[in-house]
């Protein structure tokens, strides 16, 4: 091929050589794009916002728009004060991408034990701290006192710490959670996903390879149509694919090992999986509700306890929707703020104020108990 190329007159070779050079330049640009997160530096030291109003009564407070990239900042920092022992016990930081409907959040336990304090919520291993960020905010939870917030800001990642941080983020495990059946995020590395880096590096390598082939074969068309070129381009893609696959498989393997350890020899998997309260509810219903009978669940959480208990107990005991109260004899109250049972009067006060006669069948805790509704015919 080289011999043939040499015989081609200079005028005909010039353009293919130029296109090869352009291709090499394009590869360089792609490579630079892949490396940019490692060397970039946010212009501003930090976006700091001072709330105009004191944050009393623990509202959700969002900042004005603070356009920034998650890859430039590692944490959200809050300066606040509260009465020692009465202040909130949990700080929730929130952020939202431009145009997104929902917020992402991270929680941090806090202790107010002196005057003005500074709390930092590290986001370097949070898988949702990626891409462009439009707004940040905070919310407090726990405690019964007010809290005054002086300022809210973000902590910049310095250039010197970027490579080390990226390495740590690459290998930080992303455990499977409730959302994992819907989607997998993968690790967030300096604000980008793994596809960003691996895809760009593979594209740069493929572009340089094509440039080299074009240079040697006298044109991109010749390079692309040659069988070895196509084969080698597939090889570049395969290496990239294997890298992404290996990273994802590593997380899945860790998860499987954790699950096996957690559930190995478990005598009561329901308790491990659903929590002791729900497992105790299941046992309580099995012991007290006759076969074939129906029950309803009244809870602050309209889904989780009802779905879990329905599955665990079907088909021998049927869990009905709360609207079908009239069709059932048994009511499980599971941590519900809307209803209240008075054992001395034998009355269950419903959310709408209705009073229903009921007797206590069993109780596992102050907030979780099983009632049997008393029919009007019963004394």
């Amino acid at each position, binding site marked *: 091929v080289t011999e043939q190329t040499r015989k081609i007159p200079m005028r005909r070779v010039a353009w293919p050589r130029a296109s090869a050079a352009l291709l090499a330049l394009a590869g360089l640009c792609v490579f630079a794009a892949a490396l940019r997160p490692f060397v970039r530096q946010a212009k501003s030291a930090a976006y700091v916002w001072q709330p105009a109003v004191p944050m009393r009564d623990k509202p959700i407070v969002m900042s004005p728009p603070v356009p920034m990239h998650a890859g430039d900042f590692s944490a959200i920092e809050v300066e606040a004060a509260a009465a020692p022992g009465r202040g909130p016990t949990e700080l929730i930081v929130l952020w939202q991408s431009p*145009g997104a*409907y*929902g917020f992402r959040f991270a929680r941090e336990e806090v202790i107010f034990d002196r005057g003005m304090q500074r709390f930092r919520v590290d986001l370097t291993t949070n898988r949702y701290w*990626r*891409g462009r960020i439009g707004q940040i905010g905070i919310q407090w939870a726990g405690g019964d006192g007010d809290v005054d917030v002086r300022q809210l800001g973000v902590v910049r990642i310095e250039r010197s710490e970027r490579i080390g941080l990226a390495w740590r983020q690459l290998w930080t495990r992303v455990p*499977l959670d*409730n*959302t*994992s*059946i*819907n*989607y*997998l*995020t*993968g*690790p967030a590395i300096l604000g980008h*996903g*793994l*596809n*960003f880096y*691996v*895809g760009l590096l*593979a594209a740069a390598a493929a572009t340089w390879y094509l440039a080299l082939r074009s240079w040697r074969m006298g044109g991109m068309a010749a390079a692309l*149509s040659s069988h070895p070129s196509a084969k080698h381009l*597939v*090889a570049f*893609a*395969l290496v*990239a*694919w*294997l890298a*992404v*696959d*290996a990273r*994802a*498989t590593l997380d*899945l*393997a860790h*998860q*499987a090992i954790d*699950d*096996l350890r*957690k*559930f*190995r020899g478990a005598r009561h*998997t*329901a308790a491990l*999986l659903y929590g002791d309260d729900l497992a105790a509810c299941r046992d309580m219903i099995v012991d007290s509700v006759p076969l074939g009978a*129906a029950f309803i669940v009244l809870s602050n959480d309209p*889904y989780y306890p009802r*779905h*879990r208990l*329905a*599955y665990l107990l*079907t*088909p*021998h005991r*049927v869990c*009905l929707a709360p609207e*079908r109260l009239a069709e059932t004899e048994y009511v499980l109250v599971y941590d519900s703020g809307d209803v209240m049972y008075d054992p001395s009067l034998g009355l269950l006060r419903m959310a709408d104020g209705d009073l229903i006669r009921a007797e206590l069948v069993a109780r596992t805790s102050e907030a979780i108990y099983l009632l049997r509704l008393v029919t009007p015919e019963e004394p």
Partner: protein
Amino acid sequence: MTEGRLLLALLLPWLAGGLVLRAMRSDRGWLEHVAGGWFLGQLLVVGWLFLLLRGGASVGLWSAVLPIAAAAAAAAWWCARQPPTTGRTQTSLHAPHASLAVWIAAAVILLSLAIKAAIVTAAIGGSPIRHDDALAIWLFRAKAIAGLGHLPLNPADPLYLGGTHADYPLFASLVPAWVAIVAGEWREAWVTLPWLGFYLNLPLMIAANLSRWMHWTRAGLTAYAVASLPLLVVHAMRPGYADMLLAGFLAAATLSALDAFHSGSARAIVLACVFGIGAAWMKREGLAAFGVVVAALMVPAIAAAHGRTAGLLRTFAVGGVVSTAAIWVGMDLTFMRDTFEGAGIHGDVWPVLGRHLGTWGSFGLFWYAVALGLVWRIASLWRHRTNVSPAIFCILLTAYGAAIFLCTDNARFAYNDQTPSRVFLQLSPAVAAAIAAAVWGRPTEASVSSGDHARV
């Protein structure tokens, strides 16, 4: 004893499906029969259970097993009667010539797949079910049906049609219900084993089918691409959702429709219809996806089969009537009216779809590879005027997945990130098979006979 019944629950449908497939396509290799047999067997099982249950009958071990065993015996008898096929197209997964680099790559890929299979097996065997829809819909209905031994058909019954989401197709729940009925008890590790079967047989089916039309390395790469989709592995190791089941049947329908292209075979049309019914039965999204298979692959295959068009048309017409009847009987189609009533443009969903397909890790680099494959295929059209139907199929199927969120009020499920990745997971194996056929496939018989030429 119960372990023996578990083996019966898993192996009998597989055997029956494989034998029926062999009786229909005796000219194909054993790997196609094994992998495709899994899917056909599951379809036999859920179809039979559905007939029994909707007919108001109670289901027990014998009433469930005997007809499937009879189908297997009849197919075996039919196979035995057939003369040996001389021109059998064996699946060429034994590579005659490959470089050392290819063998090393194959070893790495096989190791990766073996690790994934081990992860899935360990997860299914050693940890309980936990995800919401699995507990609240698919496995809930399966547990109710298996526990009762019949399907409550009275709308006043709290367990009417399984007790929840009565408008969802029943069939995905019948897959675990079958295992529980035959094995005689409900054990989560047992009833979810079919998900392992789907996960293992899906790439095998893709590799076996594609290797008839392209070099084994390319067929193997496509199968690996599917098996290594991170979200697919999660659906296998956290079983109970219907998405992977739908993905398997849709891929099977696509491969059969591609087969109709290459062979002009009426039996391939029949199988494409059968697997398409399976896709629609598993989840409602499968219905329109099957429609895309029909429109983009089956109709052009029939149109291109010069000399056999009339015969294929007759098969296609019968298949169409049977498919329509099966879908009409098996599905509650009222959701279509709701879908059309909620039609509208939700342009702000684009960034969400981009996040699910490319930025996040659900699919790795899959959709980038699909886009590159399509660009490559379209760019090479001027040199190779081969059939473009597989490429058009990929575009239409992907567009369908996007349209679910862009053009209907299902956009709300995109805003909360609940379903976009799952919908595209349903489509991914079919897209992978078609894009491989589009980029690497040999010319169709039709295109050869009409004078087109192509890269082999």
